[in-house]
């Protein structure tokens, strides 16, 4: 008898393990929140602004964006089937109650929140992180955003010693208003697109980074975004400024609980790179993708843009997109400074009913500007995966160069891969290269691997990993390992 019970317990554990594996970050933190009732109007925007104790100019900026948004229509040019979104059914602000008195140090943060991030594998205790340095990990400073608010930012003091500002967006508005005012909305104007206008109206928090002249940021910076509350949207803004000769590597991660309803995430990221400065921006996006039948999941509609305003400025976007029900995202580079460089490395994996329409824009304005695009799309299940990219060489961009390579890998017979490369060339000295391939994991490859003893699942993951290698090598080491593990989990059930 006892043996029988043991077996069923074991089976249960096995089942739980399987579920967790499908989306291991899908838990809900049971925490009391101060959440606005659903609905979007001027009052809501004023209320958000008041919560944040914002200056008048920012409130006006928000209201202007809202007025603009009201005149706009949701875009439908992407190769996506987006169910209608009821913007009045979404709550635009939700903050854990315990966060109200703005915790000063990590010791003041609600243990439930700390537990949440421990579960997600995001290290917040500085002492522990530093202790870990000796053994393996390089320290990473983290800003953690939970629903609509930043909960804590680690290593703030250490960074400040180097002159680096790393804090939540809300703090930056209060403490560094001039910097915020100078750059906010300058590369993604409020009326840029439907979702950026919405974000400008209702954004609630995000991260702010300023790296002063000739400073190399002493550690990796990262922001971890978590949506927890039901029926809320997350609208964060990230602003990173690398002054002349500055250098920083920044990483963002995102997860959300598993829910049957779709949730909206509409973020805006603005990067400014001045003379001889460098920003490396990496994303591991693992929002809840919905279940096997395509129920639930995050709508990830994000505008990311970098302005290489200085000469010899360099920006590099690396993204690993495995989550979200729908992804609509085109991290772009405006190469204004002479000799500036933009890079875009992307792995986008869709499974089950996920849809992704993602790519980049490289706008060459300066002389001898160079851009590189490497996009790897993997489609499995019944998903659709689209690469959409624009390379524009302006008239005065003498000697501009672009190399684009986009490869698609199909797993199974019911998925789709699409490529839309747009090229606009206004200068005859430009050199443009475009390579594109579409391949399937062939039966021959699988037979070969299996004949050597490797299971079909392991073989698939190995082939996919090989396919993504060029992009993974651009990620910071530890995240490359995480990205690979994430791909394996996301591919679960795609084989056989």
């Amino acid at each position: 008898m006892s043996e029988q019970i043991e077996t069923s317990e074991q089976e249960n554990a096995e089942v739980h393990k399987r579920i967790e594996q499908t989306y291991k970050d899908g838990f809900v933190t049971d925490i009391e929140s101060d959440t606005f009732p659903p609905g979007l109007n001027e009052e809501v925007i004023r209320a958000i602004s008041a919560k944040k104790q914002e200056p008048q100019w920012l409130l006006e900026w928000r209201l202007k964006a809202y007025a603009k948004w009201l005149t706009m229509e949701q875009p439908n040019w992407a190769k996506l089937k987006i169910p209608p979104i009821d913007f009045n059914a979404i709550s635009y602000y939700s903050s854990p109650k315990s966060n109200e008195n703005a915790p000063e140090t990590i010791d003041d943060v609600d243990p439930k929140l700390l537990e949440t991030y421990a579960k997600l594998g995001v290290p917040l205790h500085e002492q522990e992180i530093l202790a870990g340095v000796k053994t393996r990990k390089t320290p990473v400073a983290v800003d953690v955003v939970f629903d609509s608010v930043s909960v804590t930012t680690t290593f703030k003091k250490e960074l400040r010693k180097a002159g680096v500002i790393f804090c939540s967006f809300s703090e930056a508005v209060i403490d560094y208003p001039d910097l915020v005012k100078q750059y906010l909305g300058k590369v993604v104007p409020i009326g840029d697109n439907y979702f950026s206008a919405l974000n400008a109206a209702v954004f609630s928090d995000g991260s702010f980074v300023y790296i002063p002249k000739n400073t190399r940021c002493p550690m990796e910076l990262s922001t971890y975004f978590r949506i927890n509350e039901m029926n809320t949207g997350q609208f964060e803004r990230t602003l990173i400024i690398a002054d002349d000769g500055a250098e920083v590597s920044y990483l963002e991660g995102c997860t959300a609980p598993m829910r049957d309803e779709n949730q909206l995430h509409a973020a805006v990221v603005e990067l400014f790179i001045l003379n001889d400065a460098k920003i490396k921006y990496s994303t591991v996006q693992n929002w809840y993708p919905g279940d096997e039948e395509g129920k639930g999941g995050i709508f990830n509609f994000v505008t990311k843009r970098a302005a290489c305003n200085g000469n010899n400025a360099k920006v590099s976007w690396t993204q690993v997109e495995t989550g979200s029900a729908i992804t609509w995202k085109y991290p772009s580079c405006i190469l204004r400074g002479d000799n500036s460089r933009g890079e875009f490395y992307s792995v986008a994996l869709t499974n089950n009913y996920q849809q992704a329409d993602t790519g980049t824009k490289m706008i060459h304005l300066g002389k001898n500007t160079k851009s590189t695009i490497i996009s790897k799309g993997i489609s499995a299940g019944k998903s659709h995966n689209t690469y959409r990219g624009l390379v524009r060489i302006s008239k005065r961009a003498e000697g501009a160069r672009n190399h684009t390579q986009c490869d698609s890998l199909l797993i199974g017979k019911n998925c789709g891969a699409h490529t839309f490369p747009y090229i606009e060339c206004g200068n005859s000295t430009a050199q443009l290269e475009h390579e594109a391939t579409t391949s399937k994991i062939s039966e021959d490859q699988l037979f070969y691997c299996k004949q050597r003893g490797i299971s079909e699942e392991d073989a698939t993951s190995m082939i996919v990993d090989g396919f993504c290698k060029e992009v993974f090598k651009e990620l910071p080491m530890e995240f490359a390992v995480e990205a690979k593990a994430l791909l394996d989990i996301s591919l679960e059930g795609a084989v056989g």
Partner: protein
Amino acid sequence: MLNIKNIHAQVGDNKILKGLNLEIKPGEVHAIMGPNGAGKSTLGNVLAGMEKVEVTQGSVDFLGKDLLDLEIEQRAAEGIFLAFQYPVEIPGVNNMYFLRAALNAQRKYRGEKEMNSSEFLKLVRTKIKQMNMRDDLLRRPVNEGFSGGEKKRNEIFQMSILEPKLAILDETDSGLDIDALKIVADGVNQLRDDNRSFIVITHYQRLLDYIVPDYVHVLADGKIVRSGDKSLAIELEKTGYGWLED
């Protein structure tokens, strides 16, 4: 160790093997020769378990197990190795990484301890010397950009690491110049012992000068029509397969 009885196999509606029998004892080397389209490669694929080859009749006993009942990767772990006629490229996957994954998957199946990277590196270093191969092949992606000869040598190298009980060499000699042929044959000969058996599928007697078989079989129209010792291969070299039609 291997007992093939009355195997019938087809690909789609195309019947290829039509009642093939073959028995192999430990340590023996059997050469399979025969005209194009006779079913030589299909025999290798049946043993390895290729899915698109359907076995409609017959049985295969391998070391007391019903081979046809096992999955492809289980057969590999039980000791079946197929050196491919056309080795497959796997872009971006490092050859060493691939081989270690293969070895450890097999060891795990057999309940043996998995090899860590330093143990594996040591093994690889010894083998690569024995096989007289250049070690830059190890760092390159599996078969990607390899020349025809390099691919075939890589197969033999993989075999030496995986140490199968029965190795099937499917036209490993095709496309090799004489020096590469000698290296491949040398690799095979080093692995010959009293417990390991080989099926060598070839068109040419030349290979058998270097890998001397215990038996030579002629496969025609899906069946073994003649068997003999090495002298049969020499005879075939002179007479060709025209006599089959008589």
